[in-house]
């Protein structure tokens, strides 16, 4: 039994049922029943068309489960309301699932959980382990999410930006256990990119590939952070970098710049530099200028200040930093770095220690503490 194949079929089967008018939660239950049946029946009698087999069995289960008169009437109304098959362009049904799972009525954590379950086909246990919460809690989170979207019909296209934000949240989650969430986000975004022609989908996929390519070099064997400039570039995944850059270039050629494409462009410039010293900081600053124009995000402006510090010197970086709110996350760490480059280790050490106290994750806290200790040891007691 090929479990990966089975998993990849789930979203399509689920989408067909929901498209035929099945309530989302009931459809999900029916698909799970069909999977159990498949695991039992397939080894002895493999179907010629696995997806068709699953749709047939799941639909029969759904009908069995909703056999009462009232629900049948409602179902028939839904089927009646369904447009006739015909000239409508052939779209991947699973695209609708992405929109449903990223519905604006869901909280971010619910949207993420539902996407991993319905589109990714992961089990509740796998999702719970990835997010380090008990399985019962995750089961409730998913079933609440299913109830929230129970009444939503597939008759209007959703917002691509919302779907992208959910996939970005999955990617940015650092945990890795039975399921690697970064790899899972790439898999889902890849499928979305195959189903929908949208430059920002391509931009997000490129961004994920370019960051994922550097993953092996981002941490030392003891788990400590390795800053970009000190990473062993020989450990970067050149195939992923090449693919990310190709996808990005095709997207940029369409001249509909968006946030993810611009972020990917910055990542591509880092990935393209043979050594840290050869990084094209001037072009990176230009991309940050685009990002500031697109998002006006203070976090982007903070990153821009770092790039300005590299392109035009630490003084220019500090000047760019001075325009920002010092309560921003990582503001103090950036200030420490720029003061050190400006030749003021005493201020830098004090700021590194302060930044370590404010850090939100252990690897970053330890890294910043080491920076403070390094400067203090050099200066003596």
């Amino acid at each position: 039994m090929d479990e990966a194949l089975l998993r990849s079929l789930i979203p399509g089967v689920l989408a067909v049922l929901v498209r035929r008018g099945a309530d989302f939660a009931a459809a999900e239950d029916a698909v799970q029943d069909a999977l159990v049946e498949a695991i039992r029946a397939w080894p002895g009698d493999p179907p010629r068309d696995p997806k068709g087999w699953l749709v047939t069995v799941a639909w029969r289960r759904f009908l069995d489960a909703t056999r009462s008169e009232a629900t049948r009437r409602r179902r028939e109304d839904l089927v009646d309301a369904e447009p006739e098959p015909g000239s409508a362009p052939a779209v991947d049904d699973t695209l609708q699932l992405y929109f449903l799972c990223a519905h604006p009525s869901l909280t971010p954590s619910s949207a993420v959980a539902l996407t991993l379950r319905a589109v990714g086909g992961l089990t509740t246990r796998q999702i719970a382990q990835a997010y380090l919460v008990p399985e019962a809690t995750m089961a409730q989170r998913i079933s609440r999410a299913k109830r929230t979207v129970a009444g939503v019909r597939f008759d209007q296209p959703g917002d691509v930006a919302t779907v992208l934000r959910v996939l970005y949240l999955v990617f940015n989650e650092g945990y890795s256990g039975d399921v690697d969430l970064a790899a899972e986000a790439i898999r889902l975004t890849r499928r979305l990119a195959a189903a929908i022609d949208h430059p920002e989908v391509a931009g997000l996929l490129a961004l994920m590939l370019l960051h994922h390519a550097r993953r092996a070099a981002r941490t030392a064997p003891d788990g400590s952070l390795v800053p970009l400039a000190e990473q062993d570039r020989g450990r970067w995944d050149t195939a992923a970098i090449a693919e990310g850059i190709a996808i990005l270039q095709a997207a940029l050629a369409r001249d509909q710049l968006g946030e993810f494409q611009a972020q990917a462009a910055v990542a591509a410039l880092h990935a393209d530099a043979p050594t840290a010293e050869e990084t094209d900081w001037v072009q990176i600053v230009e991309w940050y200028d685009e990002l500031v124009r697109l998002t006006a995000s203070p976090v982007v402006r903070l990153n821009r200040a770092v790039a300005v510090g590299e392109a035009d010197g630490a003084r220019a970086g500090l000047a760019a930093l001075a325009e920002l709110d010092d309560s921003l996350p990582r503001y103090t760490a950036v200030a420490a770095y720029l003061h050190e480059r400006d030749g003021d280790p005493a201020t830098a050490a004090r700021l590194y220690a302060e930044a370590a106290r404010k850090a939100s994750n252990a690897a970053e806290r330890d890294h910043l503490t080491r920076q403070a200790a390094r400067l203090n040891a050099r200066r003596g007691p």
Partner: protein
Amino acid sequence: MAKYLLLKHYRGAPAAVNDVPMDRWTPEEVSAHIQYMNDFAAKLEGTGEFVDGQALAPEGVWVRYDGEGRPPVTDGPFAETKDLIAGWMVIDVDSYERAVELAGQLSAAPGAGGEPIHEWLEVRPFLTEPPTITE
């Protein structure tokens, strides 16, 4: 999507509004208090926000390394002032505001006279893994 520790302290926090020691409550008041905590945990499991929770005994000791083969155990020098953790709950929520809101609800657990204790709870964020995108 962010985990917080809600800490209940025996001592060390400012006094609660309804500050009557638990051993002066009626048995029914004690039961109502425990029921409130259990219901609160069950409600959070239902909303998909519960991670873990335990109550702790007040007997804690301080331990330190004191040379090979001699781990000294002491109740001092902090016997009068040391903070004691009465229990904790770990939640996994979408925002800091939600964490504070839930801590407020937990602080409303009933105590003496069936009235809310209004005790102080400490809300501490967990350190996490670094995000994948940092630059």
